[in-house]
């Protein structure tokens, strides 16, 4: 169990749109 005293680090998230722009399937999608 994690110690209660240690706070978790907030991971900043991109928006849905920004995520789409980092297209992980780029190679696969291109003709």
């Amino acid at each position, binding site marked *: *169990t*994690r110690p209660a005293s240690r*706070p*978790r*680090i*907030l*991971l*900043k*998230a*991109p*928006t*849905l749109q920004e*995520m*789409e722009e*980092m*297209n*992980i*399937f780029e190679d696969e999608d291109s003709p």
Partner: protein
Amino acid sequence: RPVNIPRREKDFQGMLEYKQEDELKLVKNLILELKPRGVAVNLIPGLPAYILFMCLRHADYVNDDQKVRTLLTSTINSIKKILKKRGDDFETVSFWLSNTCRFLHCLKQYSGDESFMKHNTPKQNEHCLSNFDLAEYRQVLSDLAIQIYQQLIKCMENILQPMIVSGMLEHETIQGVSGVKPTGLRKRTSSIADEGTYTLESILRQLSAFHSTMCQHGTDPELIKQVVKQQFYIIGAVTLNNLLLRKDMCSWSKGMQIRYNVSQLEEWLRDKSLMMCGAKETLEPLIQAAQLLQVKKKTDEDAEAICSLCNCLSTAQIVKVLNLYTPVNEFEERVSVAFIRTIQTRLRDRCETPQLLMDTKVIYPVTFPFNPSSLALESIQIPGSLNLGFLTRV
């Protein structure tokens, strides 16, 4: 020599270890190439969501923020991609709606936030994320779930839409009510028409098919209620709009047929224990229009009764039904112009928009109430059919 002894379940910590380079293979096998109608039929509901969450737990456990980030991004992009490709398939959309919601519930249930831990077992509390707060990613997933929900509604609408006018208005199941056609003749003509015609039975069968698919996918009961409410709204709105545009649908006997059809829809709700989901209430304008076709429309008292009865219909809709009302036998008569004027005068002070047709494209706002799971992550086994042999249970 080491002997390979299978580990006991209690030794597992409910995590799945994977190499960074296998991430693409993971989303490919688990999201992009998974067929809801094939392999997924025999899976425990929400299994893809649990597997992804257990992978995420491991990335969090080893304190690798980059691994957490890329897994979440790949997961979300893969779900979007599969919905772009198969977004017109109700089963695919329903499957990923329920899995996205389950993934979101897991992120809350194991976030370490006390408000989401109330129903956790001590073991589940031990499984909370150790290093990262994923509140912002929860928001992104919730946005994604809204998008998928809207896609599900569109998909369901495309299937239901062509059935509604035929099944709710045109097809007559109450024999001999309509006085204009001899029963024998109607029977003959309808048997030809029936081949390409939808009936109320087709609509009920379709509703049951949607419902059973969502149940099979483990969709949250609260979410099913919202989908059903939306389905009933569409059925009610499309039926009413067509009634308001067609003189042949405005008769006493059509009123009778519509009331019977509505009672069958209510019966369907009762059968599925969905009477309290607000679906029946969305049919109220249609129910009132059907009653309007059947009540007396002659005296001042009748006008008063109509005005208090039709509180879900606009003045424009009431007047339109009265204008279109067509007697089909000698016992009925047209509505007089004077009577319609009386109604208009009585309703003059009503505050309302002069709307005639209902907006069939309205989508009620959706919510995803938190629904924690009692499933123990350490007990989850991955079927070989998923081709995820590169994941290691930890």
